[in-house]
């Protein structure tokens, strides 16, 4: 059967000016990705060492290290490709949303059976993914039931196992970036994950769009629920009251990535700056409601809905202005994904 290339496939829209795709990829790696994952390993190293010294669930030093580590993860959590996807590292760092309550179940099982897997890093890496990462640690440090379940000595061991595993995953992600993946992205090749410079730009663009979407749909959409049925208990990291903080840190990181991607396209760049400023301003309006408990009352709900709309506005600019300017728009069906 003969091969056939439809002529229509050649009629790709071309941007009005020539983009330096390689420069976009280089700056994103050098100014956003590598510094972000380096900061993550520094914070997770501190978290691991802090837990090694003081594993009490009420330890102020441990709480501070938890928050710093979580902040550092939120600043890179949108970079879901390549090294984060090896061995389920990103899901190991953050298993959320946990719609069926696997994290408390897995932790309770480990604690009540005093599973010896917590004593060995390799064995622990094999236990349920829901018992790993920042959300498992949050339960161990902030959940009334989990932090009093079983023996304090075993919970201490488990906290150390979880923080060790967090640091191990963060370190592995950074190592992969430094030892090869950055080159694969900078230098497209026939057999690599990116066959063209534009494909690497498209990956970064997709990370930006998906990150915005996750903030609007999951981090805000989940607690908002519906007007008749708000779901404040579904807010991300509500036990440690960092639901809003996660969004603020994520938006700041996404703004940095958006700015780098828009460096050669002035109009989307200006519109993106304005749109991020509006959303971050609205986020600061919510500081009195750090875990979105207010979604249950009209006033509080409105403030959260406005933030969601502002993030939607950023996304519109990304999809309608930045995408075409970077020549990375996907097709009607390709984008649909179903």
């Amino acid at each position: 059967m003969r091969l056939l290339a439809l002529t229509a496939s050649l009629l790709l829209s071309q941007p009005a000016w020539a983009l330096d795709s390689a420069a976009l990829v280089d700056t994103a790696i050098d100014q956003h990705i590598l510094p972000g994952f380096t900061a993550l390993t520094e914070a997770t190293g501190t978290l691991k060492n802090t837990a090694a010294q003081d594993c009490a669930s009420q330890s102020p030093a441990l709480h501070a290290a938890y928050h710093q580590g979580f902040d550092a993860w939120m600043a890179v959590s949108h970079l879901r490709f390549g090294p984060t996807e090896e061995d389920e590292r990103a899901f190991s760092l953050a298993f959320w949303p946990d719609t069926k309550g696997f994290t408390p179940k897995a932790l309770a099982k480990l604690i009540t059976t005093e599973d010896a897997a917590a004593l060995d890093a390799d064995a622990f890496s094999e236990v349920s993914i829901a018992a790993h990462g920042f959300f498992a640690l949050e339960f161990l440090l902030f959940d009334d039931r989990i932090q009093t379940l079983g023996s304090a000595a075993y919970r201490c061991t488990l906290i150390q196992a979880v923080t060790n595993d967090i640091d191990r995953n963060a370190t592995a992600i950074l190592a992969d970036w430094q030892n090869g993946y950055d080159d694969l992205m900078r230098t497209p090749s026939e057999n690599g994950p990116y066959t063209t410079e534009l494909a690497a730009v498209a990956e970064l663009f997709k990370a930006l769009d998906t990150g915005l979407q996750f903030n609007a749909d999951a981090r805000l959409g989940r607690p908002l629920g519906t007007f008749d049925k708000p779901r404040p208990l579904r807010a991300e990291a509500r036990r440690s009251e960092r639901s809003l903080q996660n969004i603020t840190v994520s938006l700041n990181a996404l703004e940095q990535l958006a700015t780098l991607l828009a460096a050669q396209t002035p109009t989307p760049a200006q519109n993106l700056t304005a749109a991020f400023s509006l959303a971050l301003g609205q986020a600061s309006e919510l500081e009195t409601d750090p875990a979105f408990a207010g979604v249950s009352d009209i006033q509080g709900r409105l403030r959260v809905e406005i933030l969601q709309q502002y993030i939607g506005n950023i996304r519109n600019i990304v999809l309608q202005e930045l995408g075409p300017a970077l020549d990375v728009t996907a097709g009607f069906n390709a984008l649909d994904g179903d």
Partner: protein
Amino acid sequence: MVTRRRILAGLAATSLLPSAGWSSVGTPDYLSAARAPDGTYLLAGLTTTGDITFTIPLPARGHAAAAHPERAEAVAFARRPGTFALVMDCRDGAILKTLTAPESRHFYGHGAFSADGKTLFTSENDYEAGEGVIGLWDVHQNYTRIGEFSSGGVGPHDLKRMPDGETLVVANGGIETHPDMGRSKLNIPVMAPNLTYLSTTGALLENISLPAALHKNSIRHLAVRADGLLAFAMQWQGRKSDSQPLLGLHQRGTEAKLLTAPPKAQQQMQGYAGSVALSNDGRLVAITSPRGNVLHTFDTETGQHSAALSAKDVCGIGPTSDGFLFTTGTGIIGTLQSDTAQHTLQWDNHLIAITPQT
């Protein structure tokens, strides 16, 4: 040009032809949802030559459709997580009934009629439980909702009636979603797709899972051959650099067989098969990738990759006598030999053959 009548002459199952109902609407061979240049959505009837026989407006983006086996009636389903489905008279475009998903359910975009045309089955999400259900609608009572049963998994997508007329097969994609979170995927690390065969009363007959290493291969779309051979298409949710099989064949009571193209061609699919079809002679099976802008065909006997065809944003695919008709998001309708028509409409994911497939 291969006419529809010649295709049908070659079929053993001519007794299953739609009755007068369908012949009165300018004889469409397929249905497809589309987006018009003005941004509105519609359902269209299409012929094998790519001509449009009718268009009917839709209130929002559609996905797939189901054709009644006898009456010139089709049900167009909303795009996930939509809650509407429109029953339309394809002779005049009249909306006969709007189906609304029950409380705490939404449609997944696919459905199938029973062999006698009395019951419509729809794939739905029980989203608070995060479990899949199959909804039942009584066609003769003006499409009244009469019940539901478990789909046998999470995230049911496509479903088909088997040739025995007594069995349904469901592609449980395994991905949990919730309408409050749009189309965000909620359970990728623990997803577990399967193929489930059910009786028309919901009894679980057979459940096929892929090996654990393929648990992120979401089984989404189905095509059935007259002898019961099932083709299923998948969408890989794991690492992009992994090149996994995206097509499988299954015959009841046997192991599923997974088909892959040679490495380079397989990589072009970008881990995503959007639609699947079997040719009417049963010899070929095809999958499309709108992300990779490519269509692959395989020999159903040998399982060998037989051809690759490039077409931008190709997704919809339906059978012709010895091959396939495909549609693209750029408006093209084509066959393996040539592109036969270019419309200003953007064809949506699926091209549904009206001729009964089983």
